[in-house]
């Protein structure tokens, strides 16, 4: 199989050694159902509790505050289905949310809820001021993404929470933390949220595992009912391999992330393109450094991505969940002109990404764009 430089880590990451080791151990030696009554099963149950503790410690939370799910989409849906207490209140979400939050909000709208969208600034960030202008004393639920999956733009969730609570102290606050968890500070005691979603496969875990932080004291009814696993908050036999791999992998990822400077890599790309292409950098304010969103004028992102693949580099087009939709909802909300938006690509890193890979990929991108420009524009 052809070897590629992989720069689509916001879509998914390669499974870490910790994940592979957990998968092997808990699929083979310790394959027991954690709900069974015999000693080896109890051992598995203890390991699951340890995993919850590991995730909790990465969030400044307690293990009782962690619920494992099948993915972050489930976590986000769970938050919207069971996290809204005041059924007559309005719902506030940002216009830059991942599809799983955006579609959940639209579903509520179709049910008659008053759903309001907070507009981002030109850098794709949601400001506390703009959020404060959108909420009122009757706001029931606020969901603002922590780090944009499209642009890497970081939202100051702590300041947003404070601004919301000042106007509506009872509003439930949720944040989609999929692209933030393990990459930027995610201390729940400081963020001031009630609910926070995470995904395993963005930090070296397996696909099919997610988690939802539920603040202690917040009454969260189950979304999935059945055998009463996870203290009756999320039924279904736990994905033991995935959960333990997730916890171990997240811990390792966070320690590597501490030494990682993605903004340096972003600069390499931007420098390689400067003067060679007509492009904009989306999310150029406060950025996680893990994502670089670029839009090229009058070119097509899909074609650039194919040309990069031919040069041995895999990149994304934006949210993998909506890669086939030509218009980009998030970039449109940011005010990116359509002549640029169609030519958008998303490059995303992980702590294992090397400078050598980035140098090669940046040159490949500059070459691809020049070649395409010549062919298309003549």
């Amino acid at each position, binding site marked *: 199989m052809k070897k590629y430089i992989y720069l689509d880590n916001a879509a998914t990451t390669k499974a870490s050694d910790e994940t592979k080791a957990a998968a092997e151990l808990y699929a083979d030696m310790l394959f027991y159902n954690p709900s069974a009554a015999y000693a080896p099963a109890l051992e598995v149950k203890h390991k699951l509790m340890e995993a919850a503790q590991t995730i909790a410690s990465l969030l400044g939370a307690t293990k009782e505050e962690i619920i494992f799910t099948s993915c972050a989409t489930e976590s986000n849906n769970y938050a919207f289905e069971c996290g809204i207490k005041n059924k007559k209140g309005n719902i506030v979400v940002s216009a830059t949310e991942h599809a799983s939050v955006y579609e959940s909000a639209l579903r509520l709208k179709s049910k008659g809820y008053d759903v309001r969208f907070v507009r981002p600034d030109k850098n794709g960030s949601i400001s506390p001021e703009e959020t404060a202008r959108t909420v009122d004393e009757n706001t029931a639920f606020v969901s603002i993404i922590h780090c944009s999956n499209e642009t890497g733009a970081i939202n100051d969730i702590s300041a947003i929470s404070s601004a919301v609570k000042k106007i509506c102290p009872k509003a439930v606050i949720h944040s989609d933390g999929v692209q933030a968890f393990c990459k930027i500070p995610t201390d729940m005691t400081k963020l001031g949220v009630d609910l926070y979603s995470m995904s395993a496969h963005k930090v070296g875990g397996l696909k099919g595992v997610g988690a939802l932080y539920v603040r202690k004291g917040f009454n969260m009814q189950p979304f999935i009912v059945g055998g009463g696993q996870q203290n009756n908050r999320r039924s279904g036999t736990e994905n033991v391999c995935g959960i333990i791999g997730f916890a171990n992998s997240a811990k390792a990822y966070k320690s590597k992330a501490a030494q990682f400077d993605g903004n340096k890599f972003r600069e390499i790309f931007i420098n390689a393109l400067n003067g060679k292409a007509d492009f904009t950098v989306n999310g150029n304010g406060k950025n996680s450094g893990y994502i670089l969103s670029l839009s090229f004028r009058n070119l*097509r992102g*899909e*074609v650039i991505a*194919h*040309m990069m*693949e*031919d040069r041995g580099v895999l990149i994304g087009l934006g949210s993998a969940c909506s890669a*086939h*939709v*030509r218009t980009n909802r998030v970039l449109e909300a940011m005010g990116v002109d359509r002549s640029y938006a169609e030519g958008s690509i998303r490059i995303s890193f992980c702590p294992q990404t090397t400078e050598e890979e980035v140098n090669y990929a940046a040159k490949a991108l500059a070459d691809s764009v020049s070649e395409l420009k010549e*062919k*298309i524009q*003549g």
Partner: protein
Amino acid sequence: MDKVIILRYSEIHLKGKNRMFFENILRRNILEKLGKFELKTQFSYGRYVISEYDPEQENRIVSALKTVFGLFSLSIATKTTADPADIAEAAVKLCSETKGTFRVTVNRADKTLPYTSVELAKKTGGAILNEYPDLTVDLHDPDFTVYIDVREKNTSFVYSQSIPCAGGMPIGSAGKGLTLLSGGIDSPVSTYMMAKRGLKLTALHFWSYPYTSLEARDKVLELAKLLSVYTGTTEVIVVPFTKIQETIHKYAESNYMITLVRRSMMRIAEKIAEKKGCGCIINGEDLGQVASQTLESITVTNSVIRKLPVFRPLIGYDKIDIIDIAQKIGTYETSIKPFEDCCTVFLPDSPVTKPTLRRCELNESKIVNYDELIDEAVDNAEVFVVTEE
């Protein structure tokens, strides 16, 4: 009494001395389609019978037979003796869930039997009325008809319903054709329609990677697979088309882009058709649907074809009717998947709707090594074989 499936063929019975040619192909196609089932087939003049099959497989067998071109209809029948008592017993069973009016229609091939068709119909009708007194007879406009087909060798078939099949002519009976498959809604329908007229088809797709995706190619292979339920195992030839499009884009007037691209497609199609022994080219053009399907556009694209006929089975259809057929044959949902085909690459803002041959040729004369580019595309075509699952 056994359950059997009676098959009837369509217009083959209109054939004269060459009827056996069509029948042989139809039989071969039926046997190929039913290859995965354990059953017995009996082919006799004008009527084929499937017997000794697993009753649990009946629905699957019927579904498979409904996709065989050349079959007009089928009936699930009870096979019994020519004894009127046995026939009545089968007929009574058949009426267990009926209401309203009925009639009995008898066809008696064996004229040596000691009863006439009318006598048998009366006797059987009487037995049905005895068992179900709520039913009444209506010979002119019955709700339900019991058919009795008395054959030779003390055999008769009793059935009530005719299930329509695909009709048309057996695949292969009309020769071979090359069908252009783009990935849109129309071309799978035109492919289906010409397969229905008995053509064994090879599909041709123009692929413009990196301007279109791998998924666009997979979509076409998926469409070919869906169609293979009707067309049988099909070769899909994927022609690398990027270089030609880039070259035309570079040298030609932009409003002539689509016209010139389609002319080059037809040139390639004719070369591949000849290579593959196909006697015609089929496309999904529909008069006036888009700029490239005006009378003038079709004239200039057709003019590059030297020998073969080009069939356009959808030429007089409304789009809504094409969509209707696409939904019936199960290709619509795949066709509307959002992967662009090569036609959308380098799309000009205002494509010419009335191109002239002179301007086309003038534009093409600016392209250096045009013929070599065409030959290169033909030589580098990839072949995929898709079969029904």
